[in-house]
C-alpha cells in the first residue's frame, strides 16, 4: 500500500501494466499519464494522500484529504481548493516497472478533477500544476532536483511509506 498519488502511464509494450514515464523505452513516445492511487474497495481508500504539485518550479507536497465517499480535496495556499473523485479504473493495472513498488498493490483508482478549467487557470495564472509522484520527485531517478523541491522535514518524509 502506498499513500502517494502516482503519475503513471500505460506500458505501451504490455497490456495491464502501468509504469512511470521515465521507464518508457521509446524516445519521442507520447503517452500522457494520469494520477493513480490503490484501493479497489471504497473502504480501502485512505483519509489522506500525498499529492505533489509544482509551484513556480518548486515541488510542493500537498495533502489530498478525503471529504466524501470517493471525493478528495487538495488545498493549495494562495491558489485555491481543488476537488477530485477517485474513480475506478476499467482495467486494473499492476505496476510493471523496475522500481521497488509493492508488488501486491494494484492501482485501480484514478483521480478525476471536478473542474479541469480550474486546473488550467491555476497553470496559466499562478504557474501551478498538480503533477503527482514519480521517481523524478524524490531523486531516485537520475535527475538533479532543487533541494527546496523535496519534502524537507522528517514528518513530511514519513508520509511516504512505500
Amino acid at each position, binding site marked *: 500500500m502506498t499513500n502517494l498519488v502516482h503519475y503513471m*502511464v500505460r506500458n505501451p509494450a504490455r497490456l495491464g501494466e502501468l509504469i512511470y*514515464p521515465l521507464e518508457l523505452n521509446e524516445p519521442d513516445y507520447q*503517452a500522457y499519464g*494520469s494520477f493513480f492511487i490503490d484501493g479497489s474497495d471504497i473502504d480501502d481508500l485512505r483519509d489522506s494522500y500525498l499529492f505533489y504539485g509544482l509551484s513556480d518550479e518548486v515541488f510542493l507536497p500537498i495533502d489530498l484529504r478525503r471529504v466524501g465517499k470517493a471525493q478528495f480535496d487538495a488545498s493549495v495556499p494562495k491558489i485555491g481548493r481543488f476537488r477530485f473523485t477517485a474513480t475506478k479504473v476499467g*482495467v486494473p493495472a499492476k505496476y510493471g516497472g523496475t522500481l521497488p513498488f509493492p508488488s501486491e498493490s494494484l492501482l485501480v483508482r484514478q483521480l478525476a478533477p471536478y473542474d479541469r478549467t480550474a486546473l488550467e487557470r491555476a*497553470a496559466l495564472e499562478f504557474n501551478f500544476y*498538480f*503533477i503527482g509522484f514519480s521517481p523524478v520527485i524524490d531523486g531516485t531517478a537520475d535527475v538533479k532536483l532543487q533541494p527546496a523541491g523535496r519534502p524537507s522535514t522528517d514528518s513530511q518524509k514519513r508520509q511516504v511509506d512505500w
Partner: protein
Amino acid sequence: VPEAYIPNDSWKRSFKASLSPKPYPLLPAACEIMPRSVAAFVLWRKIGGSMHVFHGTSPATAATLASGGVNVTEGGGELGVGFYTGEYLHVAKAWAVHRYGAKRQNVVEFDVDDNAVQAFDIVWLDAGEASFTRANLKRSGTTRTHAFSCDLVWSPIVGTDKIQSDQHKWESLRSETALNSASWPKTIR
C-alpha cells in the same frame, strides 16, 4: 503481424463536410450522440479565432520545436506515428516533468490558426474508437508507424482509461508545414 483494425471513418469526413455551410444544430439528442472531440471542434468553430495546443517535452527539444523544428515522422504514441499535442497546459506540464525531469521551459504552446485547420482533412475518434484503435495498434506493434492518411487526428486521450482531455495527432506534411510556419506563433512555457 496482423494489420491493425481501424474503424471506418468515412462518415466523419462526410459529417465534417456537412458542417461547413451551417452551424451544427446543438440539440440535446444530437449532443448525446456527438463525440466529445467533435463537440470540441464544433465549439471551436463557433467561437472562432485561434486555438492553443500544448506539447510537453525536454527544454532542448522545446527550443527546437519553437524555432520550426516539428517533424511529424519522428514521434509516436497510442494512435501511431505523428506529432502529438493536447488541449491543456497542465496536462502537458505533468507529462514533461515526469518524462524528462525538467521543471521549466518544457512545454511548447502553438497558437493554431483555425481557418487553416478547417481546411485540413481531420479524422475524429470518440473514446470507444480511440480505445479500440489504441489496443489494436499496441497488439500489432504499430504505435510508431500507423498513419490514418489524414492531416490531423482529433481524439480523447485514452491511455489511462478515463477520458482526461483531447489530444491532436498532426500527421501530414501539410500539418507539419503549418505547425512550423511563422504565422502560427509558438511560445515556450
